[in-house]
């Protein structure tokens, strides 16, 4: 894939931005913080009606046959307006797992519903601090899952989960209908992510892969989600950089716009740099999907985008001064989202290690 968007791709970016800005008010996200398990329904309906849910899936299964680059464009715009639900990424990951590893029956059962958005998918790999535990505590035996997966993004509403478990001590990837699982919601600093612990009690599941193949597949799915998320993080950082710029151009102190003070001005210029580096890295990774060095590109994009969004949240609030820390101003929505996106797809430490292992392997 090229690093230059073609006309169709540019259209996807512009159209999604137009409609998101027209229909989603950041202020609408504030009440969601104080309720547990509620997401922005309008956003998700839009995602379904616009076909964003189907974007990166094959036509044969009700998809639009596009790829990571296009989904990334949507995610970037969604990130700009604080995407109201985490499912765009998690359903994509789940669908990819089934597409790559599932039986025809499983594909027929889930892919059309995931493509239409009527079903929601989730990824349940992590346990505590490990995004990809080599020998998970959740177990799979005789086609049934037992144990728990903590803090699954979208877990409160997902119909299907791709679970990394262990079968007699070897890692396995399992697709489980969550009708048979228990969901335990809890307060997070970003409640619209609908995060929940999933508890399995002889929950029926279908084996997708086992052993090293399961771990490789899990890493590949996580990397693809990380690339989508990198776009979302870039969008969030970009809109914060713009808000900081606009505020610095209008807010006056000591008789001039605060943007005239280099401490403010240079910080915004540095944010511009972080945003452009994140954008370029994310697009590069999306374009590398399917190439041998995809994991490396994904890790690099993930690291750059995470740094960009966290830093933009920190600095944009600081530049706004007092108003920046008010509930109403809502900049904390981005602070919270920056942190939840940083944690959900595997934290910085994890991706640094993945990337270095790839690089060290090369120079070996």
């Amino acid at each position, binding site marked *: 894939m090229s690093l230059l968007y073609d006309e169709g791709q540019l259209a996807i970016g512009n159209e999604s931005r137009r409609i998101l800005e027209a229909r989603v008010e950041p202020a609408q996200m504030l009440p969601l913080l104080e309720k547990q398990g509620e997401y922005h329904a309008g956003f998700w309906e839009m995602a379904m009606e616009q076909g964003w849910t189907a974007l990166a899936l094959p036509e044969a299964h009700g998809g639009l046959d596009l790829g990571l680059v296009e989904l990334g464009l949507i995610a970037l715009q969604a990130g700009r307006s604080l995407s109201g639900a985490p499912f765009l990424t998690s359903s994509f990951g789940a669908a990819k797992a089934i597409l790559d590893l599932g039986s025809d029956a499983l594909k027929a059962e889930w892919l059309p519903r995931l493509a239409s958005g009527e079903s929601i998918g989730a990824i349940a790999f*992590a346990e*505590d601090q490990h995004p990809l535990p080599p020998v998970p505590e959740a177990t799979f035996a005789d086609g049934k899952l037992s144990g728990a997966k903590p803090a*699954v993004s979208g877990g409160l509403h997902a119909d299907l989960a791709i679970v990394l478990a262990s079968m007699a001590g070897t890692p396995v990837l399992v697709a489980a209908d969550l009708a048979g699982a228990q969901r335990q919601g809890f307060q997070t600093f970003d409640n619209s992510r609908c995060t929940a612990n999933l508890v399995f009690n002889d929950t029926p599941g279908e084996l997708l892969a086992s052993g090293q193949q399961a771990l490789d597949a899990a890493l590949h799915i996580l990397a693809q989600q990380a690339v989508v998320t990198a776009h979302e993080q870039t969008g969030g950082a970009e809109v914060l950089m713009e808000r900081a710029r606009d505020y610095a151009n209008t807010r006056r102190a000591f008789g001039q716009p605060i943007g005239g003070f280099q401490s403010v001005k240079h910080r915004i210029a540095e944010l511009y740099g972080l945003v452009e580096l994140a954008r370029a890295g994310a697009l590069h990774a999306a374009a590398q999907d399917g190439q041998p060095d995809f994991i490396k590109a994904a890790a690099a994009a993930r690291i750059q985008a995470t740094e960009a969004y966290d830093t933009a949240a920190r600095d944009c609030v600081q530049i706004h001064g007092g108003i920046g820390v008010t509930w109403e101003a809502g900049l904390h929505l981005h602070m919270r989202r920056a942190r939840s996106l940083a944690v959900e797809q595997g934290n910085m430490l994890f991706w640094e290690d993945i990337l270095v292992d790839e690089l060290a392997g090369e120079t070996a």
Partner: protein
Amino acid sequence: MTDDQTYAERANTWLQSVDSEFGRSARLGLCVSEDLALGRRYLAARFAAGYAGIHWPVEFGGQGLGYIEKLAFEIEEAKFGMPSHYFGISLGMPIPILMKYGADKEFTKERVLKALKGEEIWCQLFSEPAGGSDLAGLRLRAEQDGNGWKLNGQKLWTSYAQHSDYGVIVARTDPTVPKHKGLTYFWVDMKAPGVEVRPIKLAGGDSHVNEVFFDDVKLTDAQRMSPVGGGFGVAMATLMIERYSATDSAGFGPHIDLFVSLARETRINGRPAIEDGRIRSAIARNYAMRNGLEAITARAMLMLQAGMEPGPEGSLNKLVSVRSRQKLSELAIDLQGVNGLHFDEHAPVKENWQTSWISAPTGRIAGGADEMLLNTIAERILGLPQDHRPDKGVPFNQIPA
């Protein structure tokens, strides 16, 4: 053992004795109004025990002891998480200023006593929508009204105004002179007609700061605490006091030991996080920095003891500690992995990485934003040029808004 060590020990013994009644455990799950009520009872007990106004003159109900004893007590008190923060600003700045500039001694004495006992609370009405960092740019008007004055306008970021009985306030009495020269300093009755307080909800969900609106609020000239047009000086004096209020090398967030414990309990790629160089570096750098801040504070205390004026490096504390607390809290959340998403907005900031992280930006802005602190260091300590200020010397009413 030195005198102030024995003093600290005595204080600690007393705090122990009232811990179960007022301390951390007693406060668990209380709503703000219950917690405030408990706080008032704690202050009464603290006054009775002789730990109120420790370094204030006896004539005002203080203990007539030194700044050292005051700091020593505050350090001990902090260990118990007593409900005293509602009164921190009240006793920190407005009351001392009242003692220094209050015209009516009798009135002053009465206020000071009630404040020490927790019966009355004072707030500090400085910031405004138009100027957070630019204090002298304030707009709230005080106009001559018979023998007295009439206040109209708005203040912003006033901590605990919703609980306050009185406040100190800076108002513009002359818009036709350069901005620093047209200000006057008053005290105001927060229950007076025309005063309206609206709490502001902050990023973390709490609401200890407020908007305060003044609509034809009447003041007598006896409420004036500075010469007419001489308010900026008194305001600066008020802010200077803040420099000497208790410092915290943890940036008012969790102690580094809590991060070390977290690093011992968590794992990175299956190995204890404490063995990971990234975490080790974060611990070591933060410890070294905090160690430096603590040595600076310790030296300042020794100088105060010896009757010397501590160096200006004391002003580094908030700048350095809060900024690093913000990043350390972020790292702590990462370290917890997906468990780091859990959030309890009421968890104490000094013990919880999530609330520490979400409230850190307020700390970097309140009481002097990082950028203002850097300017102060550069200009006042190092003698570097002042920023370009187009409004310098310009009559206030001719400065473009």
